[in-house]
C-alpha cells in the first residue's frame, strides 16, 4: 500500500508529541556540547507546525503538506537546526512533486532529497557528529529496502532503525561542524542532539506509516 496525506498528518502529529516528550532530553544533550537550546528550538517549531496544520486544506497533496512543515520550521526554529531541517522537508517535498500517493520509491526519493538538502546547506559528512550521521544511514537503508521490494512502511522502518543506530554512532566522535566543533576532544562521549532528534523524527514517520497500514 502507498502513503497519502493522512500519513503526513499522522507523522506530524507523532512528531509534535515525540519532540515535546523529548524536549528536556534534547536540551540536555545540547547543553553538553552546544548551547542547550535544541529541544526548545524544535519544540517551538513543531508547535507552530501543529497550529498551521489545523488549517491545512483537506485536498492538499503530501508534497504541499510537507512544504508547509518546511516553511514553518524555517520561520520559527532559528539557530542551526531550523534551516537544516526546514531545507530537508523543503527539498523532500519538491522531490515527490504532486503525487497524491507515495510508493516506496517516492519515500526513498523524499528521504534522499531531504538528506541532500541538509548536506547542501550544512556541508556535513558522515562522521562530522551532526544530524547527517542519522540521515545518511537512514537513506542508505531505505534505498536498500526499496530495492528489495519492501513496502513504504517497511522502507521507513528500515530507515528509522538505521537512523537510531546512526545517532548512537555520534557518541565517540569529535565534532567538525556546528557549535560543538569549538570543543575539540571535549565533545567525545556525548551524543549529538541533532542526530538524536532526526532519528526521533524518522521513527515518527515509520510509526505513522505503520498505523496507516493497521
Amino acid at each position, binding site marked *: 500500500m502507498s502513503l497519502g496525506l493522512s500519513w503526513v498528518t499522522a507523522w506530524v502529529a507523532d512528531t509534535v508529541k515525540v519532540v515535546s516528550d523529548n524536549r528536556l532530553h534534547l536540551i540536555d544533550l545540547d547543553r553538553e556540547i552546544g548551547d*542547550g537550546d535544541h529541544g526548545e528550538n524544535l519544540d517551538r517549531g513543531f508547535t507552530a507546525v501543529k497550529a498551521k496544520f489545523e488549517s491545512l486544506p483537506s485536498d492538499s497533496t503530501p508534497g504541499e503538506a510537507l512544504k508547509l512543515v518546511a516553511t514553518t520550521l*524555517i520561520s520559527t526554529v532559528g539557530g*542551526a537546526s*531550523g534551516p537544516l531541517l*526546514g*531545507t530537508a522537508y523543503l527539498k523532500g517535498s519538491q522531490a515527490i512533486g504532486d503525487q497524491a500517493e507515495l510508493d516506496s520509491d517516492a519515500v526513498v526519493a523524499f528521504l534522499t532529497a531531504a538528506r541532500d538538502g541538509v548536506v547542501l*546547506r550544512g556541508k556535513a559528512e558522515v562522521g562530522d557528529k551532526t544530524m547527517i550521521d542519522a540521515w545518511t544511514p537512514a537513506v542508505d537503508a531505505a534505498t536498500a529496502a526499496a530495492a528489495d521490494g519492501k513496502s513504504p512502511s517497511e522502507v521507513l522502518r528500515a530507515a528509522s532503525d538505521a537512523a537510531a543506530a546512526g545517532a548512537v554512532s555520534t557518541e565517540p566522535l569529535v565534532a567538525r561542524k*556546528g557549535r560543538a566543533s*569549538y570543543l*575539540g576532544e571535549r565533545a567525545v562521549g556525548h551524543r549529538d542532539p541533532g542526530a538524536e532528534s532526526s532519528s526521533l523524527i524518522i521513527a515518527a514517520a515509520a510509526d505513522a506509516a505503520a498505523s496507516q497500514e493497521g
Partner: protein
Amino acid sequence: MKKLINDPKNVVDESVEGFGLAHPDIVSVTPDPLFVARASGAVSGKVAIVSGGGSGHEPLHAGFVGVGMLSAAVPGPVFTSPTPDPIVAATLAVDGGAGVLHIVKNYTGDVLNFETAADLADAEGVRVASVVVDDDVAVKDSLFTAGRRGVAGTVFVEKVAGAAAERGDDLDAVVAIATKANSVVRTMGVALAAGIVPHAGEPSFVLADDEIEIGIGIHGEPGRERIPLEPADAIVDRMLAPILEDLPFASGDRVLLFVNGMGGTPLVEQYIVYRHAAKVLAEKGIEVARTLVGNFATSLEMQGVSITVAKLDDELTELWDAPVETVALRWGR
C-alpha cells in the same frame, strides 16, 4: 540572576521597542517580524546592507543602523540566530533596487538562516550577496571546526561596507570592500567573568577568582585556554601575539586598533589595555592610524575585552573616516 528586565521572554522585544522609542530620528523598528531599519527607509539606487544575529551584543547590530553604515539590523533571541523571516522582511524593506549585502558573523546558525533568507529574497526578485565575517583568531580555521567566529571585527566590516554603499558603489564593489575588510581584520578576546543569558539565569561558564579565559567568543563559548589572572600588560601581550602573527602584521603597516569592551569591564580598564596594545604596536613599527575604544560588540555583561587590529590601506582609511550617523558610531555629520 539580577537583571533590569520584566519577563525574560520579552527581553528582546521590549529592549528593541525601547531602542526605537529612543532614536526615532535614526531608526524605525518593525515589531513583527522584528527588525530595525533606518528611519529614512530604502534609499533608491544605493546598495543596502543588512546584518543581524543573536541579541546580547548591543550596540551590535542595531546601534550601527543609520546613514553611512547599516540599512537594517535583525536581532534574534539572546545569543540565537534570527529565523529567515525577519531577515527577508528587512531585506525587502531596505532594498533600493541596487541589491542588498548581508553581513553575517560566522556561526552555523547565522550563516544558514541568512543563506535561506537570501534565497527567499532572491525569489522575490531582490539581488542579495553575502559576506561572512570570521575575524576571531582564537578558533583554528581548519577542517575540524565550523571555522573562525565572527566577533568585534564585524564592526569594522560594517563600517567600511556601509561607507562604500553610501558613496554609491554597486553591489559587487561593496561585496569586494567587505571581503577585503574581513581579510585584513583579526580579533582576540579575553573574559574575566561570563555574562548571564536572561532565559538561562546562570552564567554560561564559571571562572575562579583568579582565572581568566583567553580566546573567548561573544557567546560565552569556551576559549583557547584558561589561565591564572595576570597584569593587564601581560594579558595584552598574550592576545596581540596570535593576532599579529596571523595576518601577519608587519613593520610599516598602518592599522586600526580597536579595543572592545565585552559589556562589564569599565572604560578605565579598556584604556589600560589600549595603552599597552598601542605601545606594543609602536615597538613593532606598526602605525596606529585609527582608533576605537568602547563597548561595541558585547556579550551581555561579560567582563573582558577583545583586541581587534585591521590593516588599513588608503581606501579602507577613507571609508572608515567617511561620515556615519548611527546610535553607536557617529562622526562627520
